[in-house]
């Protein structure tokens, strides 16, 4: 295909991606160097019946005028990155100086908002992803054994948790684990503790969010593995059986190696998607106990005063995180591509 024709075919799509994906990243990078203007203060005399007092008041008009003049805010350099709600260099070094043991240092750092969110996001990603893969494979192996007539309905039912809007799926589970809901009330009876509330305890909230994550993403792994199972060559499997491989050995040494590319694909997708966890935190109202990086950005942007600078700095750090997460995959693709070209 000549370059000209190629360009004519792809330009609308790439224009859209450049305008709304690449440029926003530039815009985020710029915004992260600015912070909101300080409010313009004015001394006002408040005269009561007995005496006059001078108080400081926000001059709304002047503040608006300053905002109009420079909508990005005032230049702050890397200040937003290093302040307390982001990388907090000063606080970290202070904690390092004060804490006696390494674990005390970790606890101190963990209490800083950015590191707390980073820790939750990483834990969520690296707990949910392997569980999704294991459960997905088990369910795929199980469904593959079912009689043909029940396969269709089973696949239909299994797809539901993934297809349903994350916010809605989260709410449905949230209402069930509510202290008055069916699961919540049952757990109270089982553990004989009428005050047991999954919402009130931080570890249980984390567990709840991760259970939701596994529930939501397992169908994806299941479907991909199930489709992969249909293409496992039957003669390889048969010869393994003749050689006396047990059922576990067949799975471990024939099926799993054969599905390795699928496993890589699922891992990649799950790492990308779990790293951006946001909706379950909103629908479980879990922000007091668990916050993710996405949630911090969401929170900065959704208040009355939008903290664009702070949101942008967190966004840049998140993008850096995504880049680190994707690097191994990109390096591998690059090597494969060069091998193919050579």
């Amino acid at each position, binding site marked *: 295909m000549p370059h000209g024709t190629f360009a004519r*075919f792809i330009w609308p799509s790439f224009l859209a991606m450049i305008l709304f994906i690449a440029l926003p990243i530039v815009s985020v990078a710029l915004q992260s160097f600015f912070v909101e203007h300080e409010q313009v203060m004015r001394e006002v005399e408040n005269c009561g019946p007995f005496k006059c007092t001078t108080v400081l008041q926000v001059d709304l008009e002047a503040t608006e005028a300053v905002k109009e003049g420079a909508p990005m805010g005032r230049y702050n350099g890397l200040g937003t990155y290093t302040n307390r709600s982001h990388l907090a260099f000063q606080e970290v070094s202070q904690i390092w100086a004060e804490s006696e043991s390494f674990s005390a240092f970790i606890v101190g750092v963990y209490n800083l908002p950015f590191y707390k969110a980073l820790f939750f996001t990483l834990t969520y990603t690296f707990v949910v992803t392997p569980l999704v893969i294991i459960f997905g494979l088990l369910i795929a192996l199980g469904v593959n054994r079912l009689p043909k007539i029940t396969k269709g309905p089973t696949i239909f039912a299994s797809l539901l948790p993934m297809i349903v809007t994350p916010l*809605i799926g989260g709410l449905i589970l949230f209402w069930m684990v509510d202290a008055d809901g069916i699961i919540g*009330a049952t757990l109270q009876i089982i553990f004989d503790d009428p005050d047991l509330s999954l919402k009130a305890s931080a570890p249980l909230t984390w567990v709840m969010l991760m259970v939701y994550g596994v529930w939501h993403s397992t169908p994806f792994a299941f479907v991909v593995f199930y489709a992969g199972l249909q293409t496992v060559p039957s003669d390889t499997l048969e010869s393994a059986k003749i050689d006396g491989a047990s059922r576990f050995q067949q799975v471990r040494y024939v099926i799993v190696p054969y599905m390795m590319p699928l496993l890589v694909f699922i891992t990649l997708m799950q790492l*990308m998607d779990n790293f951006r966890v946001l909706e379950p935190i909103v629908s479980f109202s879990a922000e007091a106990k668990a916050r993710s990086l*996405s949630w911090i950005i969401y929170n900065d942007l959704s208040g009355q005063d939008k903290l664009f600078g702070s949101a942008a700095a967190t966004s840049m750090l998140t993008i850096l995180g995504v880049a680190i997460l994707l690097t191994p995959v990109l390096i591998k693709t690059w090597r494969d591509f060069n091998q193919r070209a050579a």
Partner: protein
Amino acid sequence: MASAATRSPRLLTWFATSMIMFWLMIAVGPFVWTVWGSFKVQGDFFSKADWSNALYGVFTLAETGGTFTGSGYYGAWVQEDFWRNVLNTTIVVACTVVISLTLGTLCGYALARSGYRYAFWLLIAALVFRAMHHITLVSGYLLPFFEWNLCCRLTTTIVVLVAINQPFTLWMLHSFFLNIPKDLDESAMVDGCTRFRAFWHVIIPVMWPGVITTGLFSFLLAYNDFAITSMLLSSENQTMVPKIASFLTQIREQGNVMFAVSAVVSAMAPLFFLVLFFQRQIVSGLTAGAVKG
């Protein structure tokens, strides 16, 4: 006769079957429970005292005179004007799907047919774009959109959703186009078609299954989106998902959980039918990327 090697031990069969039953219960149970409960009053939906109340609707009978009530739905759709949000969602989703498919098929076709090195790099760029968190992109949009008065319109949201859908759409359509033999469009071009006419009259007619599958996923991305719609739309023209999120704050103030429950069930219903009718396409779409990768 089944040989000893292919016959399963009974224990394994039992284990596998019970595991699948358990999974089905977890996968479908919550939905069934919530749909059933949405026709009850709050006292039954959150029936702490006796869980069977939720099944038989004891409080519902006492409060409304019947074991089923549509009061939650009336409250959500009529009192809270949920139909407006449904309408907005319909507009946003329909436009997003049509536009992303148009742009995506053109681009995906070109990427699949060009043998150049940079086509590969464009696909990798699309993969990196796919990994971007939507909320980080939103924090890039908001300030310029406020400044240029583009914010809070349905059109802006549609354009943004189309752009965000593109990387995924490209990857999927690209792998579908690779499955269509090159000879087809080449022979059309030998017969005197231009590249575009070959694409339009020869390739697209055989591509319908792929286009429908990709359309389904664009639909899901647009329908399920929360980060973008909740940020870019104002309360007057919200779509369903952000509206449901705003019900949550209302619940804390007024306590009408059932409105939210009925709204949730209403928003779930179309997805249910989508899976029912397009199960095969969804499965093939999910695996399209994997088999190539």
